């Protein structure tokens, strides 16, 4: 999951530093995540996982780190009707 998140962030977040230099708990905002970047990451996650993140889980703290994104997504993937859908990040 975190590896997939890293690839989504690398492709869509436009951070100031390479994602590889960040730990799971490092602040994405400190790494240059903008509001536009946040939106792109959110839409890319939804596209890749084929789910819709409920409004109440979309908060400033959710996008704080790879760790916080993963823990927000974990229950959605287990509960969700699309739980068995394969990860589809790399449709090039």
């Amino acid at each position, binding site marked *: 999951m975190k590896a997939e998140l890293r690839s*989504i962030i690398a*492709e*869509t977040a*436009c951070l*100031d530093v390479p994602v590889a230099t960040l730990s799971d708990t490092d602040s994405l*905002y400190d790494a240059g995540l*903008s*509001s*536009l970047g*946040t*939106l*792109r990451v*959110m*839409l*890319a996650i939804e*596209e*890749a996982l084929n789910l819709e993140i409920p*409004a109440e889980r*979309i*908060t*400033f703290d959710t*996008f704080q780190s790879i760790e916080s994104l993963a823990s927000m997504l974990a229950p959605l993937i287990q509960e969700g009707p699309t739980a068995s859908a394969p990860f589809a*990040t*790399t*449709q*090039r």
Partner: protein
Amino acid sequence: MLHAFFFDSAANQPHSAALWVDGRAYAYGEIEARARRVSSGLASLARAGEARRCLLFAHRSAAAYWGVLGILDAGLAYVPLSPKMPAARIAAIIGQSGAPSMLVDHRCAGMLDDVLPLLENPPRIFLLDEDADHSDRPAAAARLQPLPTAPCKQSRGAVDDIAYVLFTSGSTGVPKGVPITHANADAYINGQLQLHGKVDNARYIQLCELVFDPSVHDMFVCWANGGCLYVPDTVDPLFNADFVNRHRITHWNSVASAAGFMQQMRKLAPGAFPDLRVSLFGGEPLPRSLALAWMRAAPNSRVFHMYGPTEATIACTGFEVSGAFLEDARNTVMPLGWPLPGVEWMIVDAGLEPVAFGDRGELLVAGPQIAGGYLVQDEAGSRRFVERSYPGRHARRWYRSGDVAHATANHGLVFHGRVDRQVKIRGNRVELEEVENVVQACSQGTQCAVIPWPVDEAGRAAGLVAFVVNARGEPERVLQACRRRLPLYAVPQRLVVVDSLPLNANGKIDRMALAGQFASDTMAGRTVDRVAQRVAAHPRA
């Protein structure tokens, strides 16, 4: 005088809250005392022959605000700098400002190490928040000193003195300084006080950074009304969706994009912001779908679309969005509306002759809010201010906005884009020539074109894409170099290396063809591009 809007309220209600920032509230009296200390310190330093300006390098701190007020009270103009600007741009502004002194807060002091080596004649630098924790002082700290203490003198200055200098994008790559006088700013603030009734216990949010002029509206309209200015830690719309309710904000003022992000992040549920009373949107087109969503989310708020270039002081027209106007689905974008008090307008052709009512042309504006000219007078700049008399108008001196508009009888002025290549990126003014100059220099390509992309149904651009022929170096490296020279919003999100650029019949780069080609390529392309198009697509309600 602009600062009198604060000091008059401070005299009347010293114990009410004037400012909330960094987790605490400050009373009018407390800010006043701090501002007077800054003012007397600065006044004691003044030397004959020096520019009557003071740089302010402070970010979302209480000190930033007593800095603004202290500089104005000392009879100087404040020249704000933002830590979000690259060091090279900060240095360019410092150089152009000619200001002998700079006030810095603890938050921005760390960036001085990057900025000072770029300056030939660094200003005297004084630390604003003298009681902050200095354990992690930067190397530049050796230059930092507290302001001298001096006995308080009574206010100096006249209404034709400069109150602030803001810098906008210049097409040659050099930022253009716009000096605004107290008379300019007073005319705007008085007009706002005339238009909007006073709300008791008003709480204004300051989203805009001090380097952009809507911040002047937030500060001084708020303080003139005896309200409290709330400064969130960040401009992030997701953060502020929560902040608005936590602090029961009554007055909102942002670019339309900030509301657009909130809508796309699903934060504009009906009734989401019940405390808002007045919401202002400016800087770029406000689409009908967004205005509708905002009015539902903030059912107790009046909603205004504001328009105006920095050269005409904050805003010169406004349109109050009504339910009736939104009912008509043909009104896809909010109009610019009607002139604010004291503002005159004219729509003219390329020869500056008036067009027939209802025809499109360049919008000219005039009145007490129009700046006297640019800080550095050059030929291109001075062409923007013209002396003309028009039948039925009092003004003799006009500012050419570069915006194309037409007049309507029912909704005032309606916007139709630009006469030049200026674009708005999330409400920020960007000259595409400036970005092309920087991309060209950083990539050493033989040819370069920058286009706004993606563009939504209301004509708003979310970002830029650069195309370069024969670029040297990896695109990522080139963009990183651009980040060191341009404000973040003006840095292209992507750099595409191409073999050639499409040309039109005149042999010029055909940007329309380029945009069309890019759009069709990316539909089948990478996730990042498809996501970017969804960013611009009509959002879910």
